[in-house]
């Protein structure tokens, strides 16, 4: 395609400006984190002697090790189960198409755009009655349920395009429905599954509302929830707050940089289909 040099330059400049605007908050956070604790640094300025120790101090006072463990435990509770049961349901509704499946699918769709605030009040009482308040289960169980609409929707969209012939051939060879699902269709669905896993991982990690309402102790929360508590605790010490926030961001940033292509594809597809 022919592109004039002027257009090309205009585009380049625009891209650079956009990237700068996107990055500026991160840089400001980083630079501020290096100022002496307890000071109010003015805007974006490199400190005379950078306090790298702020990171260590924030790591300790935020109990970062505990926070990471907590978030990982929550992820372990949510993602594998949600992935498995969402895929099973998506497979049934998309491929086996049982009678009544359409109605069930529509009921799942109902929850696709549900704002979590809409059901947070009854969730609180339900979790309380189960005796799970202030435990990680208070986040894990509702979150699995809240991911179901998207997981089912996503996997159904995938399985609906899988050819029938393969299943028929497997059936003739005497495969049960479970074998058909587990041995044939799941291995063939890895791209769809990994995108879904990435999305659910990210949404769990960043889940804030459930953590704030259902769990008081930051060391039992998700990372985002812990960050909220961290702000309450260190709101007055800006450099330490910035250092702590950066530390809390680091795991996701590293994961993102390693798996960036998968992340971008998953998020783009995720929003188109959702």
């Amino acid at each position: 395609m022919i592109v004039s040099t002027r257009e090309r330059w205009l585009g380049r400049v625009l891209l650079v400006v956009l990237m700068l605007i996107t990055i500026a908050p991160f840089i400001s956070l980083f630079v501020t984190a290096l100022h002496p604790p307890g000071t109010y640094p003015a805007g974006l300025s490199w400190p005379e002697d950078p306090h790298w120790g702020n990171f260590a101090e924030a790591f300790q006072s935020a109990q970062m090790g505990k926070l990471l463990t907590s978030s990982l435990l929550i992820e372990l509770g949510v993602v594998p189960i949600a992935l498995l049961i969402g895929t099973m349901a998506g497979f049934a509704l998309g491929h086996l198409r049982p009678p009544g499946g359409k109605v069930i699918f529509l009921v799942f769709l109902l929850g696709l755009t549900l704002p979590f605030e809409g059901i947070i009040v009854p969730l609180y009482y339900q979790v309380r009655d189960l005796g799970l308040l202030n435990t990680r289960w208070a986040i894990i169980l509702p979150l699995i349920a809240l991911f179901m609409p998207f997981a089912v929707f996503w996997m159904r969209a995938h399985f609906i395009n899988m050819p029938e012939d393969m299943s028929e051939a497997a059936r003739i060879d005497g495969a049960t429905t479970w074998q058909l699902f587990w041995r044939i269709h799941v291995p063939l669905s890895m791209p769809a599954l990994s995108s879904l896993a990435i999305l659910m991982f990210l949404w769990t990690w960043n889940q804030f509302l459930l953590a704030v309402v259902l769990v008081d102790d930051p060391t039992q929360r998700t990372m985002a929830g812990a960050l909220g508590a961290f702000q309450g605790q260190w709101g007055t010490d800006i450099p330490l707050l910035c250092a702590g926030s950066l530390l809390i961001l680091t795991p996701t940033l590293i994961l993102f940089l390693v798996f960036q292509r998968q992340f971008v594809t998953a998020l783009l597809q995720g929003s188109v289909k959702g």
Partner: protein
Amino acid sequence: MALVLPAAAFYSVFVLKSIASTIQYSFYDWNGVTAATFVGFDNYLEVFREDELAGSIVNAFELILFFSIIPVTLGLAAAATIRKFATSRMAMASRTVLFLPQIIPLVAAGIMWSWLLSTDGLVNQLLRAVGLGSLTRAWLGDFDTALPAVGVIGAWVLFGLCMLLLLAGMTKIDPSLYEAARIDGAGPFREFFSITLPSLRQEIGVCVTVTVIAALASFDIVYISTQGGPGNSTLVPGLEIYYLAFFQREIGTASALAVVLMLLVLAVVLPMQRLTRER
């Protein structure tokens, strides 16, 4: 059918049942402890009559301007400008950068921007540098600017996603359409309005849906950056539900507002779906 059962069980127990309970609570006056009394539609009347509650809904609609209209229009303009070299190395690198706001928790975005928008923050520093020092203020603490300032945070978070979605849509448009238009003597503006825009109906629909829901159901950013203040100038329904239910112990009113919020989201999503699907 047995395969659907686990998913359906989780979904029914925690989501469907909770939706039903929210609707049920919304007709009662209940403080969460003592017996509830049935009050019919009183809670809903309160939602629309009381300034604080109705105001939170108005604020959510104002946020749509920032969360939705600005990212989508700017995203369209930016994507159209860089469309022609969307596959160049620089554009690919920009994807990574522009996606950053999408992967960090909204809480983190809130913390970063609270600092940027504070009295000594980068925004004011830049204003002073270009001689607009008289405009500087604590953006999130000022009655007039707090809501737009919260909106700017949302716009920053959602812009990259919108732009990249729209750009992905633009690269799918058949290039011969553009060549034909060039031959017919169409300028870049004509091109944009008669080819690009109509071909992107689905992508625009997706962007608008996602961002409008983000505006109506905003919670994290507001909770971190302003807590609804100063006064109630940045109070949004999500935050008000949280305050009503867990601090003021007005479960009924909170639930009525929750029902209104869920209906508002549906009222936006359903027509958008119809608009983008039909073709």
